[in-house]
């Protein structure tokens, strides 16, 4: 099996071939290759397997969200593969970068982890995920973390989702404890209007998510980790502008097909497509990349 060969030419089927994908300079801001799925592979082997697809699909760079710990609700719980992750990030800057998780319940410890992994390590940013005691990114505790991120010029990623549920059913009544909504991001964004941050998963519900973040120019809107809806990127471009949208692959639990199709479906210029697929991320955190000698 040759991973660089295609039995048919994708361009004959209305989608970009590998070279055309490479020309788009795609950076995925949402790579889960190191996430322990407790499935077919241990994390390092899984990453190795994932990179075959990354290369096949012409992706220039992926940004892992699981560096230094991949526990969904305990962001500060260390990973047993810390040494290997550090080596991979330090030696493969041309195709993989990493961000690390923080916990708003423990700002001091989160900042210490940032010192270790960002100021004195290979990571380029932080992620707020779930939090078992309900400390979301909007909690005042997060301010200390965000201030340090601002000082370091670090990328800030916030997992958000609007999960319909509850009784009576509401747009976020099905959210997990400590799971932020786009509205939580806007509360943080309002406190830090000059700090760029990503509203992850386009808020789960992209129609409502885009409405929520629309007034906050420092919020980037991410398409990753959701089912592909035709017209969704067109809608976001109309509401937010192409300069505020970033993209991620969310593999291995999602496919490049699912995620890329959202952007390929959009009736936008090649220039705007390139912005969404990587240029916006490179531009927003250019200083960080320069300071760490990361090819961008």
């Amino acid at each position, binding site marked *: 099996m040759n991973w660089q060969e295609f039995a*048919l030419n994708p361009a004959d089927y209305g989608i970009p071939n590998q070279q055309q994908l490479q020309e788009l300079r795609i950076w995925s801001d949402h790579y889960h290759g190191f996430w322990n799925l407790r499935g077919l592979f241990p994390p390092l082997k899984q990453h190795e397997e994932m990179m075959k697809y990354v290369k096949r699909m012409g992706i220039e760079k992926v940004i892992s969200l699981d560096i230094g710990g991949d526990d969904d609700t305990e962001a500060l719980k260390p990973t047993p593969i810390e040494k290997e992750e550090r080596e991979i990030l330090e030696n493969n800057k041309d195709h993989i970068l990493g961000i690390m998780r923080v916990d708003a319940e423990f700002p001091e410890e989160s900042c210490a982890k940032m010192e270790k992994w960002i100021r004195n390590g290979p990571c380029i940013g932080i992620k707020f995920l779930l939090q078992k005691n309900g400390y979301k990114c909007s909690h005042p505790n997060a301010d200390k973390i965000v201030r340090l991120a601002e000082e370091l010029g670090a990328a800030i990623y916030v997992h958000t989702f609007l999960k319909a549920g509850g009784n009576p059913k509401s747009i976020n009544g099905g959210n997990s404890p400590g799971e932020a909504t786009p509205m939580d991001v806007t509360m943080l964004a309002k406190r830090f209007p000059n700090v760029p941050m990503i509203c992850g998963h386009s808020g789960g519900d992209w129609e409502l998510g885009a409405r929520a973040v629309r007034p906050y120019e420092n919020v980037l809107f991410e398409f990753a980790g959701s089912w592909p809806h035709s017209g969704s990127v067109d809608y976001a471009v109309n509401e937010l502008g192409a300069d505020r949208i970033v993209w991620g692959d969310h593999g291995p*639990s999602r496919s490049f097909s699912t995620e890329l199709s959202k952007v390929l479906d959009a009736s936008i210029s090649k220039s705007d497509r390139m912005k969404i697929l990587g240029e916006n991320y490179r531009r927003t955190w250019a200083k960080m990349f320069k300071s760490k000698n990361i090819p961008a």
Partner: protein
Amino acid sequence: MTNLKKFTRRNFISTMTAAPVVASITASNHEHETPPDNKPEIIDTNVNLFKWPFRRMKYEDTKSFSAKLRQHRITKAWAGSFEAVFSKSLNEVNSRLAEECRKSDKGMFVPIGAVNIAWPDWEEDLRRCHEVHKMPGIRIYPAYQSYDLTHEDFPKLVNLATERSMMVQIVGTLEDTRVQHPIVASREITFEPIPDIMKKNPRARVQLLGWNDYVNDELLKKFVTETKATFDISWVESTGGLGRLIDGNSWFGVRTPVPVERILFGSYAPYFPLESAVMKLFESPLTLEQMKSVMNINANNFFKQVV
């Protein structure tokens, strides 16, 4: 309405006038399995026409949708109607669907009618799908039509459709329940009754659409080893998911391999971008034979078994 012709085995035989229409569709497909330019065309077994009630679809206009399909080398599309999911006037929905398919982009759309066994006299809708609208199959949406597949009429539906040589497409997921409009409460269903019903009727031709959330590995094994059910790829997910489905090496652990002969291209457009399903053919390093199977050969074979 009591004067409408009811289906019986006798008048079934006398109403096989649908067959020539269906046969011509199949022949047309067969001719294009691998055209002279060696670029196989695609048969999309899972599209929908008309309006989704909660959002305007980018390609909801049939003409623009058809052009979009052709842009991706899709030359045949088995089309249901989004209206069928919510409307109680299914005959009206099916009539509109048949008419739209007939008048739009000749030969592109194959109408797949809707039947709801939870509603009275559904047998008449089935009869009309076959005899009046000349449809080769029906599509059911139990999670939205609000019945379980344990419903006493479900085996009857499969049997009657099979007697008429019609395919039955069973739809699992239509949308991510997490982002449904809060007013919607789609039903929790299970596909578990299907294999036993198919085993009792080996001639039944069943295709599962949007099936992934409803079929765990144990059930998948039953479907693969005990039935001839086929699967679409619209909701097949994970990196390289199609190749891994064939190989049985899911990222989440070893799974029952699904023979490539049982996998049919299905996009769930225009709800999903067409690019999603098309790109799945290329994301995994499939062989040419595997690609051709999924692109059209399996759909043609499935169709031929139906007619």
